[in-house]
């Protein structure tokens, strides 16, 4: 039986900080960066008031934040950090270290654009830059999802079949700084759900000394990468299992994708993050006008849910598809999500007209009009009309 939950007015940052408090990690190392800063203010407040047992390391850079998290996770601790945009970029080198060492660390990521020009607002270029660094990537639509995903992330990361770090993204400002109703779990529920961490040859087992972070020459490096690929494939299953387990607690199921009104949809947009919410609203509105539209929201970006996505598209009546990317792949065809969608379909021998749509860079608003414009492009594509390979939405021309 699902109990009535307490709904609180929280920003994304507050929700994430609350998840961290309830998870009560052993070590949190973080460096302030807009728009993540206030998440760490809230958490620091928990530390200062004895509401967590966490060792909070106020490091001098994001690079050191993740470096300390790597040290702590290898030591056997449950370790977390939080960052945004350029902070994640500064961590980049250590992202691969964490995943290569198979450490179950978790980053609460507030998605922010990368410089230059400097911009503090939300887009996915930070996360997409990190997409191939061996981290599991979960993307949240709203504050409650960020909260839920962070709690699940701990369990996913520490699963013996996975042992990979996880980053959980939410759009900077749009989610991180907006107040919404967030339904909270009870402290005991969260603690029971995440459980006590499992240690895999912890560095601090001084009775059994281990060497972490060895150098692997060309005779074994590739084998370790193959192991990581296997772990990612396992993660695909584990994320689903953890989602099901979480559903028993939450009454809301988290899957790799969320197909919204796609069953009979002729035009489908693929969206990730906060814009998915706006897109759902637009779908409802357009359906009132009798238009057969739907969206697919991507929640798991790594491992990418090729099967789920292709299944959902194949099961629909799609005539054409639009892929909305909140990041660029300069010199590529369209955005990173576009490439993944093409791969998902091509490898299933399914071919649909696909339109590339770039939106929301540097926090540029993506409202109802822009989603409708995106559907217009998809419709044109379906009708065989000429559309540019990539359409920038809400661009001043």
């Amino acid at each position, binding site marked *: 039986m699902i109990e009535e939950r307490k709904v609180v*007015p929280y920003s994304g940052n507050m929700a994430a900080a609350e998840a961290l408090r309830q998870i009560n990690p052993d070590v949190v190392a973080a460096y302030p960066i807009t728009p993540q800063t206030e998440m760490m203010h809230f958490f620091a407040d928990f530390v200062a008031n004895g509401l967590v047992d966490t060792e909070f390391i106020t490091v001098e850079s994001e690079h050191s934040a993740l470096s300390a998290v790597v040290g702590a996770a290898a030591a056997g601790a449950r370790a977390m950090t939080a960052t945004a945009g350029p902070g994640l970029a500064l961590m980049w080198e250590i992202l691969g270290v964490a995943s290569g060492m198979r450490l179950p660390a978790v980053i609460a990521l507030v998605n922010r654009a990368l410089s230059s020009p400097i911009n503090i607002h939300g887009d996915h270029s930070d996360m997409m830059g990190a997409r191939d660094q061996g981290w599991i990537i979960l993307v949240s*639509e709203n504050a409650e999802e960020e909260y839920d995903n962070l709690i699940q992330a701990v369990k996913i990361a520490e699963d013996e079949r996975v042992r990979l770090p996880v980053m959980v993204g939410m759009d900077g400002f749009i989610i991180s700084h907006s107040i*919404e109703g967030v339904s909270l779990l009870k402290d005991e529920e969260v603690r029971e759900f995440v459980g006590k961490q499992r240690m895999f040859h912890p560095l601090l087992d001084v009775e059994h000394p281990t060497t972490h972070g060895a150098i692997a020459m060309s005779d074994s490096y590739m084998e370790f990468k193959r192991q990581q690929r296997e772990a990612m494939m396992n993660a695909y299953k584990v994320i689903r299992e953890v989602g099901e387990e979480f559903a028993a607690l939450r009454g809301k199921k988290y899957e790799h994708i969320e197909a919204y009104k796609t069953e009979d949809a002729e035009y489908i947009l693929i969206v990730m993050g906060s814009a998915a919410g706006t897109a759902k609203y637009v779908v409802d509105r357009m359906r009132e006008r009798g238009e057969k539209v739907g969206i697919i929201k991507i929640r798991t970006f790594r491992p990418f849910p090729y099967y789920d996505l292709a299944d959902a598209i194949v099961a629909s009546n799609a005539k054409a598809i639009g892929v909305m990317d909140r990041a660029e792949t300069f010199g590529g065809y369209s955005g990173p999500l576009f490439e993944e969608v093409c791969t998902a379909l091509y490898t299933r021998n399914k071919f649909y007209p696909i339109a590339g749509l770039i939106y929301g860079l540097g926090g540029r608003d993506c409202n109802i009009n822009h989603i409708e414009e995106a559907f217009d492009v998809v419709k044109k594509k379906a009708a065989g009309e000429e559309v540019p390979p990539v359409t920038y939405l809400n661009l001043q021309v």
Partner: protein
Amino acid sequence: MIEIRWHARGGQGAVTASKILASSAIREGKYAQSAPDYGAERAGAPLRSFNRVSEKPITLHCLVLHPDIVVVVDPTLLKTVPILEGTSENAVLVINTDKTPEEIRNMLDIKDRKIYTVNASAIAMEEFGKPFMNVPMLGALVKVIENLVSLDSVKEDIKATFGKKVSKELLEANLRALERAYREVKGE
């Protein structure tokens, strides 16, 4: 769904007022959002903040383009920012000014729409000696928009938000300012 846009200057507490509004609505079991439109500006620069309040879940995550209500916290913004942008003739304007709604209508040549005014600056100065017009403006807003949130919910939220951070005196001054504006706001 009701959509609100706040106009203020950085440091005047409009973001906080907008948060309190969303917060109070959520406490009442409604669905609400509060989203500030942050720039790189600092205290003093014009800023906007948005609210959505609804009986049904809100999934929209974008700026409010067509506000049903516009709240102007700082009267000096009346002529400098496009406060009517995106509003329909049915929109409601709640303005901090010492003028009457008619005077504002004539001064800014506003057609249609419903105008309410309240001297929030005076209330703020009288109640706490500082130009924090956000809470009084919230009081006025609650009064003029029926069924948005109740004054009691807002009071509860102000206590929860400020209770730990400010002195008892300041908290009470805020509550007085809220109620005064609630009473003193005038419509045409």
